[in-house]
């Protein structure tokens, strides 16, 4: 067990003070100690926020599991576990380097070697991030982008294909568009504003999910012969609600944490505003999605209200640092309406996205970057361009991958396996042993 270096430095400091000579040395010592203090505070803040973002993984896992049939539960949980396992390892190996490395190929991608630095390259101070902790925070974001997709492709995709997808997304697709803004690439140069990643994280996941849903086609029985949508209700809404609460909680690492420092006065101001905007937008999203279903379908629907909360969160993510509290409420409310419309739109297009990954993360991700222009003073043209570029990149890149897998016959499971459930077919393991579960569709 150990003792901190600071107590020693404080002693040295006090010792130094005993000697009247060397006042400048004293002052320098004080300055250095204070810089270390700010450094420690900022890195602790980053550490805590990274943990909150990592905790979003079980949120996604049980939300997606709860919104799908019991017979596919093991499969969905497994995909979420592997998103974090693969994501951490690949983002360590190459992803981080692609995203935050030195510009290459005319600024379309970065690179600075395998793995991550282990030591500080600059003097410790406020706002200086330890490279290992910085990676830790960024890796959590990468895994989030990956895991959004697993809900959209639930119930019919082969597990091995999903692993390929997940690896490609975290190692390559997400880092590349991430580099464009956060890595200092061309979108950053144009002044594109996406504070915590409405587009960079969520739209990437949402549009990759849309590509997957299109390439796979709908689950058997999801649309009638005449194209009328048929509901395939989730098997456990308690898990779904718990998942949303966990995500809401984790989002306070996602958004406030993106300030990347708390030791300065400006940092605290920003974090305070970001936190409040985040909760207000989520609340408005949930409330308005509920009202929308109440008016449209006659009864308030829980699953839509839950999606509304997430929609509000995604919508505020890009702009939470530059909009006022009332604007945050408006942004969340509109996101709550958008998500209901987005779900209906996919039904009309006969695209089967079992958990609404695209309406929540894709559509509201774009809404988030636009709202930064509308309510936050960012250049609306640049925002639209950036949102479009990122969404298009994720959609096209992943669509190609999914169609390659389809061509190889690896994408979708057999009809019989799908009907019996992927848990038996892919994993030979069922989630609810002993419970009597119907599987009549």
């Amino acid at each position, binding site marked *: 067990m150990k003792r901190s270096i600071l107590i020693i430095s404080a002693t040295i400091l006090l010792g130094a003070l005993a000697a009247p000579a060397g006042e400048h040395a004293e002052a320098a010592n004080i300055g250095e100690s204070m810089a270390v203090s700010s450094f420690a505070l900022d890195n602790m803040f980053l550490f805590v926020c990274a943990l909150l973002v990592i905790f979003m993984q079980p949120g996604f896992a049980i939300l997606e599991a709860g919104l799908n049939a019991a017979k596919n539960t093991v499969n969905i949980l497994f995909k979420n576990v592997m998103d974090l396992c693969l994501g951490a390892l690949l983002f360590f190996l190459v992803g981080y380097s692609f995203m935050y490395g030195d510009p290459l190929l005319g600024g379309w991608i970065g690179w600075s070697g395998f793995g991550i630095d282990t030591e500080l390259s600059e003097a410790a101070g406020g706002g200086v991030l330890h490279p290992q902790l910085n990676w830790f925070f960024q890796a959590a974001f990468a895994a989030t982008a990956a895991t959004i997709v697993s809900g959209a492709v639930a119930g019919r995709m082969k597990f091995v294909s999903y692993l390929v997808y997940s690896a490609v997304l975290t190692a390559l697709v997400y880092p590349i568009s991430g580099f464009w803004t956060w890595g200092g690439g061309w979108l950053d140069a144009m002044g594109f504003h996406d504070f915590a990643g409405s587009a960079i994280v969520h739209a990437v996941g949402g549009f990759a999910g849309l590509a997957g849903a299109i390439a796979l086609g709908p689950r058997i029985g999801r649309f009638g012969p005449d194209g009328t949508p048929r509901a395939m*209700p*989730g098997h456990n809404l308690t898990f779904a609600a718990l998942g949303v609460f966990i995500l809401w909680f984790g989002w306070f690492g996602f958004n406030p944490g993106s300030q990347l420092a708390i030791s300065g006065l400006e940092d605290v101001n920003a974090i305070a505003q970001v936190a409040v905007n985040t909760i207000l937008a989520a609340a408005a999203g949930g409330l308005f999605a509920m009202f929308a279903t109440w008016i449209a379908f006659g009864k308030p629907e829980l699953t839509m209200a839950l999606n509304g909360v997430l929609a509000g969160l995604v919508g505020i993510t890009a702009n939470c640092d530059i909009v006022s509290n009332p604007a945050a409420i408006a942004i969340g409310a509109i996101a709550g309406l958008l998500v209901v419309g987005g779900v209906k739109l996919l*039904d009309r297009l006969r695209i089967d996205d079992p958990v609404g990954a695209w309406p929540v993360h894709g559509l509201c991700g774009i809404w988030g970057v636009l709202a930064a222009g509308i309510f936050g003073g960012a250049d609306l043209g640049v925002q639209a361009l950036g949102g479009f570029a990122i969404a298009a990149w994720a959609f096209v890149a992943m669509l190609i991958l999914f169609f390659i897998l389809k061509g190889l016959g690896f994408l979708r499971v057999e009809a019989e396996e799908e009907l019996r459930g992927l848990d038996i077919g892919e994993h030979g393991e069922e989630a609810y042993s002993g419970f009597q579960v119907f599987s009549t569709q």
Partner: protein
Amino acid sequence: MKLITAYIQPERLPAVKKALYEREVFKMSVTNALGCGQQKGYRETYRGVDIEVNLLKKIRIDIAVNEDFVERTIEGIVAGARTGKIGDGKILVTELLECIRIRTGEKGESAIG
């Protein structure tokens, strides 16, 4: 011997059990079932899509009885289950050829009770 099978509303089970006890019918087997009959179902929505639920939750009761208990068993079920509303259920009676008590190997009328 007869086998009496009844489909009733789930919430009537305690009342039916009570009515049968009062008539000294103590043995029965209960299963849950879904039923489709004159009672029309209800509508649910899930993510904006309509679901017509027309298989409603029911309770199935099976009772093996000797001839002299048939009447009072039927009457007891009706007494406990009837509310007068559609969905109250049905009672079916079939012939029972044999009844065996596994524990003792007893057969026939004495094995029923």
